[in-house]
């Protein structure tokens, strides 16, 4: 028996068993995980190929439409699911479609733009309100969410107008500078006024040339720094030559200095006045260079009234924060404010009462020695700040390089460079802020602040610059130099410049005349005064320009002219939600939100005598200026009309085009009341053929209205009666109250179907050619259907639902209904089993 127990045990221990279980679990879990990836592997290519099919289908649908029915995008949005590569898509008139195919939710969008092809075969994208060029670019996007990220398929295609008017005429010529030698002008834009989509830019030899539809045109040549020139009216059918000579604008120079005055400054610090009576008065004087009044305390007296406060920090020590007894609560522009350790201070023969008394030991009556002085004394700094915001307004710091105590030589904080002192802040010494970079001039505000204590502060002993309080007011002649601030004028000739480190600027090449000068920084802006000169080579001094208005904008400037080249005043220019109007010379300055903007001139056709026009993709940067966004406005009007099905009922959603010389100049879509309005860059004065763009099977009476449009007019072109327009029957299909997701066949027809059971007619060529029309559709996976039918008839509607038994025998069940559908009407018919 005993031998049995001596045997080596061959079984497994519990630990071994558990280890084995763990290893097996890892394997099993791995396999389960693999299923997930197998599933992804099946889904991923499926999503992509479905998306491709959907995009292709949309392209096919759009290419099957007539050219003018492919409606150009007029409003867009960005799909931020793809940030930072968000794509732009149509929100009007085409919109987005939500599709569910194979259990995946797809979003299908389009972006349709007018393009023009130049003589080199390159495509240029044009704004939607320019006249038609006979070519449209279609982009279809299909996006979906899969595997934790957004995916997208994009297809592009071009759609040409089969009836496109050929560009069989041509303008050529040169643009030269007027005067001696007539050098060529490169970069001048020559544009056909009547069709702004046709233009060219001159090359190095000043030559231009562009093809255009035969017709009557006026050309305009324009170039920055030159006066624009306009050609006579040419009737072109072949090549027409026109040579321009442009006169250069005369110019001069504007100089000045740009200052920022946006915060309070410490204008004087005295650590010990050493009065004749032996008292040690000390004070911190503050100056307000801004244009607004500062609240220094929320109430008079001691207690929790602190708003603007001072503190002192000795080198190597902690900050001393005194208590305050406020005697004055506000600080007016250009005035001083006196923090002192006593109610009245005396120095340089002047006595001033304190606006706030500070105290270190709960006894406002004694003269506390907060700021360490002596020869030698420690380095240190005084800080001016807003208590509630924890915001620092100004710092004055000084060193004591030879005070014998190595740990107390350097100020803990200072601006730029601390005031250089050998034995520190002495008794009877003053630190006073300069009035300008050259020093302290009595009678001017102590406000020079280049953010460098050593450069901005003068020290003197004994005290010669007397203290000031809130009763004293002086004019600031400097401030903080606005280094790097962009400077520009509204003349349209000069380009912008930047202020130097000292704030000084020189703006050269400014056109003769008197212009508004703009100086801006990222934070604030000055719209300056009016500067300039009448004669060529003038030199104007703008003096000190103060940036005091808060700025959150970038700026766009340019000129709005008529076709004669003269500026048009009071034209509304807009970018985003910002608007401005042109001045008497047609120039405008538009503050705009930073980012890419579309700029509109004559926004919303505010001045009905002109058309609206726009410039896309204008980049605006905070505090910067974007120049030369110029517009030429055509005299214009609007075309209005009505589309009806029978003289009473309106027909909505029909595109209507206006043609001039067979070129589509603009289009509109009828609203819910059947009215359309056509306006835009192309709708100038002239004679237009207005044509509704009909679907297959529709007809219009009359087919065209011809109308002459006068500037500023909204011409009513007339009424179109469209027959044969489509309506729609839609609804749900349910079985036992649940949506049928397997498909139901729906037929609508004006005839009555017979048979037992009722079945749809055999769709052979004879049936299709017959006078009775049939409309059919299958319900979708969501249990809904949408069946477009010709409007103006009463229809019998049939729905067939098939179920299968286990022997695969079909049970076919039919439901029947009737509905009258008018053109443009949507009728709901639900079927249930």
């Amino acid at each position: 028996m005993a031998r049995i127990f001596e045997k080596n045990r061959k079984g497994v221990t519990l630990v071994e068993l558990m280890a084995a279980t763990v290893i097996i679990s890892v394997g099993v879990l791995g396999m389960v995980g693999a299923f997930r990836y197998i599933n992804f592997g099946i889904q991923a290519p499926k999503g992509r190929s479905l998306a491709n099919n959907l995009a292709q289908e949309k392209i096919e649908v759009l290419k099957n439409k007539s050219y003018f029915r492919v409606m150009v995008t007029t409003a867009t949005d960005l799909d931020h699911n793809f940030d930072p590569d968000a794509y732009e898509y149509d929100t009007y008139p085409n919109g987005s479609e939500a599709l569910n195919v194979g259990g995946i939710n797809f979003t299908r969008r389009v972006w349709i733009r007018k393009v023009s092809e130049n003589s080199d075969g390159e495509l240029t994208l044009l704004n939607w309100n320019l006249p038609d060029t006979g070519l449209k670019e279609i982009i279809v996007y299909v996006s979906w969410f899969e595997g934790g990220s957004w995916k997208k398929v994009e297809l592009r295609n071009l759609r040409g107008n089969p009836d496109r008017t050929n560009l069989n005429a041509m303008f050529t010529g040169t643009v030269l500078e007027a005067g001696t030698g007539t050098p060529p002008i490169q970069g001048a834009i020559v544009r056909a006024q009547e069709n702004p989509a046709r233009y060219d830019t001159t090359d190095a030899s000043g030559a231009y040339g562009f093809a255009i539809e035969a017709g009557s045109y006026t050309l305009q040549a324009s170039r920055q720094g030159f006066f624009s020139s306009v050609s006579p009216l040419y009737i072109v059918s072949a090549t027409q030559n026109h040579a321009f000579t442009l006169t250069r604008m005369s110019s001069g120079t504007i100089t000045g200095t740009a200052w920022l005055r946006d915060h309070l400054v410490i204008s004087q610090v005295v650590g010990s006045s050493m009065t004749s009576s032996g008292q040690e008065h000390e004070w911190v004087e503050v100056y307000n260079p801004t244009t607004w009044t500062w609240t220094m305390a929320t109430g008079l007296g001691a207690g929790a009234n602190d708003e603007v406060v001072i503190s002192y920090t000795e080198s190597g020590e902690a900050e001393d924060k005194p208590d305050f007894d406020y005697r004055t609560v506000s600080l007016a522009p250009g005035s001083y404010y006196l923090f002192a350790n006593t109610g009245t201070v005396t120095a340089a023969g002047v006595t001033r009462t304190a606006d706030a008394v500070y105290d270190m030991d709960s006894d406002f009556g004694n003269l506390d020695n907060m700021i360490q002085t002596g020869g030698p004394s420690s380095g240190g700094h005084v800080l001016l700040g807003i208590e509630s915001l924890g915001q620092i307004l100004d710092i004055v710091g000084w060193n004591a390089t030879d005070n014998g105590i190595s740990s107390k030589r350097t100020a803990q904080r200072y601006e730029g460079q601390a005031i250089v002192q050998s034995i520190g802040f002495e008794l009877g010494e003053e630190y006073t802020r300069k009035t300008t970079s050259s020093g302290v001039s009595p009678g001017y505000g102590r406000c020079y602040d280049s953010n460098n204590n050593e450069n901005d502060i003068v020290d003197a002993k004994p005290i010669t610059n007397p203290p000031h309080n809130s009763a004293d007011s002086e004019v600031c002649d400097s401030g903080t130099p606005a280094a790097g601030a962009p400077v520009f004028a509204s003349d349209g000739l000069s380009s912008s410049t930047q202020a130097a480190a000292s704030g000084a600027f020189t703006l050269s090449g400014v056109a003769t005349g008197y212009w508004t000068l703009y100086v801006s920084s990222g934070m604030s802006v000055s719209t300056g005064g009016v500067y300039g000169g009448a004669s060529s080579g003038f030199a104007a001094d703008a003096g000190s320009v103060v940036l005091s208005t808060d700025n959150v904008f970038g700026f766009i400037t340019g000129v709005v002219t008529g076709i004669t080249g003269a500026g048009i005043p009071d034209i509304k220019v807009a970018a985003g939600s910002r608007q401005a109007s042109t001045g008497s010379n047609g120039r405008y300055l538009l503050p705009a939100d930073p980012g890419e903007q579309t700029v509109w001139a004559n926004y919303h056709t505010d001045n009905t005598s002109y058309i609206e026009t726009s410039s896309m993709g204008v980049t605006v940067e905070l505090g910067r200026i974007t120049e030369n966004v110029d517009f030429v406005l055509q005299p214009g009007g609007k075309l209005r009309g009505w589309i009806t099905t029978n003289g009473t009922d309106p027909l909505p959603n029909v595109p209507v085009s206006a043609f001039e010389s067979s070129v589509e100049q603009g289009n509109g879509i009828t609203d819910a009341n059947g009215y359309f309005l056509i306006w835009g860059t192309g709708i100038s004065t002239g004679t237009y053929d207005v044509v509704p763009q009909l679907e297959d099977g529709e007809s219009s009476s009359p087919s065209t209205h011809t109308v002459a449009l006068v500037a500023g007019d909204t011409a009513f072109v007339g009424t179109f009666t469209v027959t044969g327009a489509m309506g729609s029957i839609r609804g749900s299909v349910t079985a036992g109250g649940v949506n049928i997701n397997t498909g139901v066949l729906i037929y609508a027809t004006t005839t009555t179907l017979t048979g037992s059971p009722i079945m749809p007619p055999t769709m052979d060529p004879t049936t299709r050619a017959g006078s009775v029309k049939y409309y059919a559709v299958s319900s979708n996976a969501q249990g809904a259907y949408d069946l477009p039918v010709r409007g103006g008839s009463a229809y019998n509607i049939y729905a067939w639902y098939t179920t299968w038994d286990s022997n695969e025998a079909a049970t076919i069940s039919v439901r029947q209904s009737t509905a009258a559908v008018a053109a443009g009407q949507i009728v709901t018919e639900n079927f249930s089993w």
Partner: protein
Amino acid sequence: MVTPRSRKGYSLMELMLVVAILGVIVSAAPRMFTGIYRFTRMITAKAEIQKNARGTLSNINRGLRQAQASSILVDQVSGQPPHSRITFTRYKTDGSTEVVSYYQSGKKLYMSTNLAAGKKVCDDLRYIAFTYPKSDDSYIVSISVTFEKATYEGAAKALQMAVEKVRVMN
């Protein structure tokens, strides 16, 4: 005689612990296996009918695009769902023509060429309908097809519905 016992067997406690763990594993295993089995069936079924749907549609689409519009006839095999058969004459690559017919019979899709007996294309066909959105336009035919496959007794069915509009080219 008896040597000092160095115990090599299991204690009662160990045995009970093992039995308890095994019990948990044994009771959980069938549920896990059923889950994995269902998952696999569902995936297989989905993949199969998706393949069916895509294959079928692109097959019919390709044939129908090359059809002569005037030759198209839509009806159904007797007793089968309405408009579940399409018959058309199409051009072959060598320029000759052939008559092609796709039709549903039971839950199967058949294809027949030149009126010969139909060959089965696929199973699990729940619904197919060939429709002209507008009967006066012979060039646009819409095909709607649904496949359905039961995965196992009484449980969820995999469904796949697809719609395609075909533009007839000839």
